[in-house]
């Protein structure tokens, strides 16, 4: 198996704190990696660095062996679904318009219908995106990320505004993308149960990487799960 992602000694320093400290891990092609960690654990910083939005880091990030600071080709290999898609509420774009933005080869118009059907949003294609529910929007942004046939899908899971039914649908879509279409998935989530069910690998982040390995190993180690739960619970209490 090829290394889809290879992160080596990744460190990101802010003036008063290290957001990421010497993080190294490898994601094999076809893996489904769940990244968990409390708020402020550096998940967003990790994603921003991987996506080329933060370039002020030391260490290296490689996609399929190519250092992202040296080659721009990696943009074609990854699809990204943001946690909270930000746009003007009355932006004059339909669902098809938004998915088309992701399409690099504009002659692949059929691909748009295909992906909309696959994600159960084909009937919404002419609706303005400002009219959609949280769950529908999430699927539109997954469609936009997938329309270019990426090899890696990076998702920042939204924490609020999505109903239970949409969450279930979202999970079944992820499972299918990984098992049938063999897309490598890197997914940041707050839901330990869902990570346990879906991901075959887990990375547990709290500025440093304190666990990375098969999810069975993580979830069968009560001490680790307890440690993680306590850390995130403290964070949770802290925020409320």
């Amino acid at each position, binding site marked *: 198996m090829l290394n889809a992602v290879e992160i080596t000694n990744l460190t990101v320093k802010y003036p008063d704190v290290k957001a990421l400290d010497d993080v190294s891990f490898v994601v094999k092609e076809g893996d489904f990696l769940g990244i968990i960690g409390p708020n402020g654990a550096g998940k967003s910083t990790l994603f921003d660095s991987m996506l080329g939005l933060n370039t002020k880091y030391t260490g290296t990030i490689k996609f399929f062996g190519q250092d992202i600071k040296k080659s721009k080709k990696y*943009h074609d290999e990854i699809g990204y679904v*943001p946690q909270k*898609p930000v746009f003007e509420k*009355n932006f*004059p774009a339909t669902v098809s*318009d938004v998915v088309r933005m992701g399409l690099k080869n504009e002659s692949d118009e059929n691909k748009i219908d295909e992906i909309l059907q696959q994600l159960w949003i084909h009937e919404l294609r002419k609706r*303005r995106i400002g009219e959609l529910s949280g769950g529908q929007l999430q699927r539109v942004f997954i469609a936009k990320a997938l329309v*270019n046939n990426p090899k890696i899908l990076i998702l920042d899971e939204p924490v609020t505004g999505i109903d239970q039914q949409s969450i279930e649908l979202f999970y079944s879509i992820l499972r299918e993308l990984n098992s049938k279409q063999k897309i490598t998935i890197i997914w940041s989530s707050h839901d330990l149960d869902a990570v346990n069910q879906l991901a075959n690998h887990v990375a547990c982040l709290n500025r440093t990487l304190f666990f990375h390995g098969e999810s069975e190993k993580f979830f069968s180690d009560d001490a680790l799960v307890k440690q993680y739960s306590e850390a995130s619970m403290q964070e949770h209490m802290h925020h409320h």
Partner: protein
Amino acid sequence: MSFEILTYSFMHRALISGIAIAILCSVVGLFLVLRRYSLFGDAIAHSSFGGIALGLLAGVYPLWTAYGVSIVSALIITKIKDRYNISGDASIAVLLSSGIAAGLVIISFSGGFTIDIFSFLFGSILLVSVNDTILILALTGAILIVILLLYRQLLYSTFNEEQAKVSGIPVEKINYLIIFMAGITVVTSIQLVGVLLISALFVIPNVTAIMYGRGFKQTAIISMSFSVFSVVVGILISYIFDITPAGTIVLLSIGLLAITMGIKSAGLLSKN
């Protein structure tokens, strides 16, 4: 009388130039409005006032100096805004006032040339020459071609800069390109409505079109149609009743906006 005016060659030039400018302003303006840069056109127009004064003082065709000054100052202000993290509206205020201030100082140096300045402030579409018309058509064509070629990049980076960047779109370059195109569009359009009313052509047809709740291309087409309608009818009415074309054009487009708001309030448009 109403048919006779369509036989005058100055009227042909005015209508052809007016239609080209209407299309250009609504397309470029749509990107500016969606980027919350509605007043940027106004700011560039005001900075062009400095350029016009400079041209009149130096004895150069004022629109050439206006092109130079507006584009350069718009790009500089964008750079300053990014570098020093000044908000969009504040940077617009800086650009707007510095152009007028420079213009006023230059005018007072020269002892004043109020009549020429007047036509730039309020437009003089009925006076456009053959050369002006050719220039307007050429620039409109060139900008529309650039927009068609870079359509996806322009739309995506307007929709969400961060995601566009992740997709490998050179967002910063695209931003400068939009500013550059806005600079050319504004100065080209000064002949139609003048420095003071430019932003109306950028903003009003687009705000109106967005209310119809359609996709991007349809919104652009609706906006262009409203803009062309206001300009053509505005020029004809203003000639027949001997009133100012610039004011008439802008009032007509405000009328279309009011009608659209009425239709929307009556629930005849989609609720978005």
